[in-house]
């Protein structure tokens, strides 16, 4: 079992503090959902964990199995097992999905070691079959001219191929119609298990009908203000975020 510990994390973009002391521990085998209205720092949290250069961690720590990852470059964090499914994945013109994933796999090998191409394609095709992705898909350039659904499916395929220990899924449901949502959710569910910890960031409860979380956290103004099980998501859906806001005000 592995753990991803986020300890009293403070994150700023420029001078503006976005995440204001967030603490959360995710273990492999668990699915955590973070919900909250727009602008509360959900996406900032995921990008900061992944090491985006625009996000400054002013205090606190992020640890994998007790070891801080904050001194690591984004690619080192990725190779240590952190995967970020982007809300807005970048296009890489001229680079096919197959070649991109191959380069990503190659980057995980020791210097001088060559990727076994046959084994790689075998694995790629089996993952594509699992996710019901057409074979032609991987000869397209990464995200270039993709629909919203195709972009998200491409993210899920990458996740399946790279087999991370922790997957941070940033608004994976945004821009998806119900069919695409179901396909993406099936993909994530297929990868769920003892080897993977998931942090699911979402604005809507809808996604959680398909990917049922073990824990639900409500994020507000840069902090987790309420945690519970999957029923919390349903309460939120029924009562809205104002309910949490009022509760907070009452506590204060």
């Amino acid at each position, binding site marked *: 079992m592995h753990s991803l510990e986020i300890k009293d994390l403070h994150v700023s973009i420029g001078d503006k503090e976005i995440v204001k002391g967030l603490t959360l521990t995710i273990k492999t085998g668990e699915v955590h959902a973070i919900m909250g209205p727009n602008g509360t720092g959900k996406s900032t949290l995921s990008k900061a964990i992944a090491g985006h250069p625009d996000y400054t961690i002013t205090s606190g720590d992020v640890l994998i199995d007790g070891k801080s990852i904050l001194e690591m470059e984004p690619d080192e964090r990725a190779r240590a097992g952190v995967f970020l499914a982007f809300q807005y994945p970048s296009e*890489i013109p001229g680079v096919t999905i197959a070649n991109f994933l191959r380069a990503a796999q190659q980057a995980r090998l020791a210097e001088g070691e060559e990727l076994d191409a046959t084994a790689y394609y075998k694995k790629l095709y089996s993952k594509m079959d699992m996710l019901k992705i057409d074979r032609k898909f991987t000869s397209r350039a990464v995200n270039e001219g993709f629909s919203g659904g195709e972009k998200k499916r491409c993210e899920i395929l990458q996740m399946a191929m790279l087999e991370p220990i922790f997957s941070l899924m940033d608004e994976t449901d945004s821009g998806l119609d119900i069919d695409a949502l179901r396909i993406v959710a099936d993909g994530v569910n297929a990868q769920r298990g003892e080897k993977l910890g998931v942090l699911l960031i979402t604005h809507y409860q809808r996604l959680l009908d398909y990917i049922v979380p073990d824990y639900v956290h409500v994020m507000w103004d840069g902090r987790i203000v309420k945690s519970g099980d999957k029923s919390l998501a349903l309460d939120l859906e029924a009562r809205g975020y104002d309910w949490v806001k009022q509760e907070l005000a009452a506590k204060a």
Partner: protein
Amino acid sequence: MKPLSDPETLAPAEEAAVENPSVGIDQTAGNFTYDVKYEFDAGTGLNENTVRYISSVKKEAQWILDFRLKALKTFESMPLPTHWATKDLENIDFNKIRYYLSQGQKPKRTWEEVPDDIKNTFERLGIPEQERKFLAGVEAQFDSEAAYSNIKDIVAKQGVIFCNSTEALREHPELFRKWFGKVIPTADNKFSALNSAVFSGGSFIYVPPGVKVAQPLQAYFRINAENFGQFERTLIIVDEGAEVTYMEGCTAPKFSTSTLHSAVVELVAMKGAKIQYITVQNWASNVYNLVTKRGLAHEEAEIKWIDCNLGSRLTMKYPGVILKGRKARGEVISIALANDGQHQDTGAKMVHAADETTSTIVSKSISVGQGRATYRGVVHIPKHLKGCKNNTECDALLINTNSRTDTYPAITVRGDQHAVQHEASVSKVSEEQIFYMQQRGLTEGQAMSLSVNGFINDLARQFPMEYSVELKRLIDLEMEGSVG
């Protein structure tokens, strides 16, 4: 004129060099030199005696000496083209260059006969291995002359001639003289005049009518000596309905002083002939590479230049095609990568001189760090012609915020019965894109080089496999060294 060793004028490109032990023609693998004893040395500096010396050691006919001497006068009378080109040209000190260095006049037919130092040079560059694997013939030039030249029997039996210019002038003067200097006149530019005065080495190819040479012929140009100028002269004549692919590679070690490479390449494609000319140059970052390349395409002939420019301090090269016969086709595909301290001033020239002629130019340039890429294109379609087509596409990729690219397209189309299309784009590798790729486990350098390879992917796919693999590897090396 400033001396070449002036630290202010020398490009700070050393920092970009990468240590890489793998074999091949990357700049570091090419960065070695042997202390070779030269039997023939024209000394330093250029005057009439230099030209006479070169001509006499080659035992040339009088007409060639006359041609050279006339060219020298033309060279001396022409100004540097700094009214449009970079002032960096002024840093070339023509009096400090050695114009002719060789160990002998006759290239060897087997590698065993090649002197050890020279043989070792080409072994390290992987040439004999490539020859065994996929080439129909190889010529390996070491400084001024070819050290090795061989063509596979099966190709020679078809009547294909492949030798260096020195031999060709001796053994096939009638063929040579007919086209020599006809596609690129001496006075075309100052550097073609210089080449015409002091040329030595380079390839001569003749392919008889109807013969299609299945495997490529390759020449490799190696500069070994310091303060040296390499002036090879290549002439390729492909007769009616015949086809050939020619590839050239070049390297030089990194010296503290600058080196000059100034070639002239003339191609003649007779009726229905096809020539594909592929260059992958990877000069050290102190080489001035000033090359004139042009082809003459007769009726229904096709000339295609594939030009990859990596390395050098300054490259000025605009391969061209004169579309002389009806339905002739010309194509230039070029890739240039300008790293820190480098200026790739490249482009293409298409002169339409017959009806229904077609030309295509696709140019992609990558500027890294303070590297500068310039595209210059000339397309000329006169009024009296009809049914001509040109398609020009030039794309530039900037890696850093201080990278630079300039585009100077000059398209002259007269008359109203032509179709011309021009597209240009400038893109940047964004920070988001690099972060995205890093998030998948690629280092920043790997992410950069994958982005660059993606940018040129559609062009690289058109290369023979061996060369596209090599190009990808060279780009990886350039990009690995450019970040950090």
